[in-house]
């Protein structure tokens, strides 16, 4: 079902740009009815660096399949970014990435 989150991060002038691609079907209620599967989508996603939250989003069913998120934060090269998410059925995932 749900797989790893791919993380790409690059530092420039003290700001790290992170691109994350979470693998998740993101079935909305209409799609779920059509496919005869349970409605399932990520409800909460956070990105942490050294235990500090740098990005946080409460999401809905209207995200595209395999949601793509891009954001910036003030950081440095070599930062270990941990992205965690929870979906509505209780599924979780945690993936790591390093800022280049």
């Amino acid at each position, binding site marked *: 079902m749900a797989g790893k989150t791919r993380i790409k991060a690059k530092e420039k002038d003290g700001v790290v740009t992170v691109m994350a691609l979470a693998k998740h079907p993101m079935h909305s209620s209409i799609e779920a009815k059509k496919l005869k599967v349970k409605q399932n989508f990520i409800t909460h996603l956070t990105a942490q660096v050294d235990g500090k939250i740098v*990005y*946080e*989003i*409460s999401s*809905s069913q*209207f995200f595209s399949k395999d949601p793509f998120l*891009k954001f*910036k934060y003030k950081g440095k090269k070599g930062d270990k970014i941990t992205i965690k998410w929870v979906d509505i059925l209780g599924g979780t995932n945690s993936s790591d990435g390093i800022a280049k």
Partner: protein
Amino acid sequence: MNRRNFIEIGLGVAAATVLPVSLSAVDFRKTKEKAWLEKDVSKAIEGLYGSSSTTQGKVKLKAPDIAENGAIVPITISSDLSATTVSLYQDSNPEAAVAVWTVPAGGVVDYSLRIKMQKTGTVTAVVESDGKLYTDKKLVKVTKGGCGG
């Protein structure tokens, strides 16, 4: 849960305009459950912030004029304001709210994501800064619906 935490959370829930900034990891789906079910954009904003009076400007919303595929509509929200929360709405899907970001202290507001849109509709971004709401809107024409419809 100790007493201090309990009081902080209680205050945060009671006064929607005073968001508990000190508390990290706020899942708005749990704290503001009803706002996510609203069909109307202004009602969803009201449900989330307690007020729907917004000021146009200071927020930049980037979205395509025409989205060929409603399943992937790229959206970018950026602002120079020192924001506490950022939220995104549209009026083409069954429910209005799409996403709510909690901006950490000193965070950079420059968020991109891809959303689904069932039909042509207006995308609204709201940035909360200093208790005030700033907004930007854009009409996106969808030629092929992307909500499974």
